[in-house]
């Protein structure tokens, strides 16, 4: 089956920043993304878990964005501007996609 090269960017970011991030992505010309829930985690700012939490202060989401390789830099710049002051992680993986016309 015909596949096409693409980049898979996964941004784990605080839930309160989700809309800001996705707005920035859209502005940077990203045509699609998927938001995954996160149960908990650990990092330099300590360990946390979503259980029992009412406040949105604690809690992260993972925004997955598959794009054409040539758009990667624009996306990373946009994402970085939002993530910069915040806790969170950005990773980029090479991948292949079906239906490249969608990206």
């Amino acid at each position, binding site marked *: 089956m015909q596949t096409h090269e693409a980049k898979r960017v996964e941004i784990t970011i*605080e839930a*309160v*920043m989700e809309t*800001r991030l996705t707005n920035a992505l859209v502005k940077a010309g990203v045509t699609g993304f998927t938001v995954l829930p996160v149960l908990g985690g650990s990092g330099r*700012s*300590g*360990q*946390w*878990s*979503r*259980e*029992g*939490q*009412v*406040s*949105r*202060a*604690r809690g992260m989401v993972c925004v997955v964005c598959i794009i054409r390789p040539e758009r990667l830099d624009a996306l990373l710049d946009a994402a970085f501007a939002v993530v910069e*002051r*915040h*806790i969170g992680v950005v990773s980029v993986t090479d991948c292949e996609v079906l239906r490249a016309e969608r990206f």
Partner: protein
Amino acid sequence: MDGILALAASNLLSPIILFFALGLLAAFARSDLSIPEAIAKGMSIYLLFAIGFKGGASVADHGIDATLILSLVAGLILSFAIPMIAFGLLRVMTRLDVTDAAAVAAHYGSISIVTFVAATSVIGSAGLSSEGYMVAVAAVMEAPAILSALWLIARYGKSAGMEEGLMREILLNGSIVLLVGSFLIGWITGAEGMAMVAPFIVAPFQGVLCLFLLDMGLVAGRGLREARSVLTPGVFLFGVIMPPIGAVLGLGAGLLLGLSTGGVVLFMTLCASASYIAVPAAMRVALPEANPSVYLTLSLGVTFPFNLTVGIPLYLAVASLVTGA
């Protein structure tokens, strides 16, 4: 006075406080007991709906008091002002930097709706009632303190600036919208509306509150275990002396406004309590450099249990003494 001591004692043995303690203990003992996030959020939606609606229905019932507007204004002013005092105290008593101190200060200018509910139930047990619109005062006090914190940062620290859209986000925060909306709907639909929803929001209320406090105990306990290190003696001390200071301001305002004794207690409680839902989320957006462990631990792990156990009975005692009730 004796009655009040008895009330304080019985308060300590109320199911609500015992379930909070159960949650704390379970967390300290590392039990895996936990409430799913969706259920915890569902309970908080239920509580806001019930509190708002009951407040509105009570206003519909008793009519608008001349002091309604004045109380709202007083609430606004206190919510703006208290963070200034808290910030000053924090800078003196603790080693928190400007950002952390401002973030903590914002929490104390805002309010904790569950503390408010607990106080309502304590004054009810004492046979007192209160102005229904105190719920609206609570809503009005949710957000202004956030602005004070940003102003403090701009004044004493690196300018934080007000991010675009943040103001709308704070004012249209889910809890505020639900509380105010339910209040208005309770007001509009009055006794008739109340008759429809009462079996849902009145009778089962205390039971839901017990489970909610169990969850708060679990979250507070886990937070305390994780973040023990941030609780230096100075920080801890702040968490227990700031509430009475706020309460004194609330007392003054309540007396000036001529509120009922119950109303005065609620005003004191609002000023004495610290936010742990709306403000922490706003701080993550506006002041991401501030350490969330500090403010969450102080607000939920120190000040909330302090108010629940010692604070509210104390405020009731003082208000009763002063108003001669």
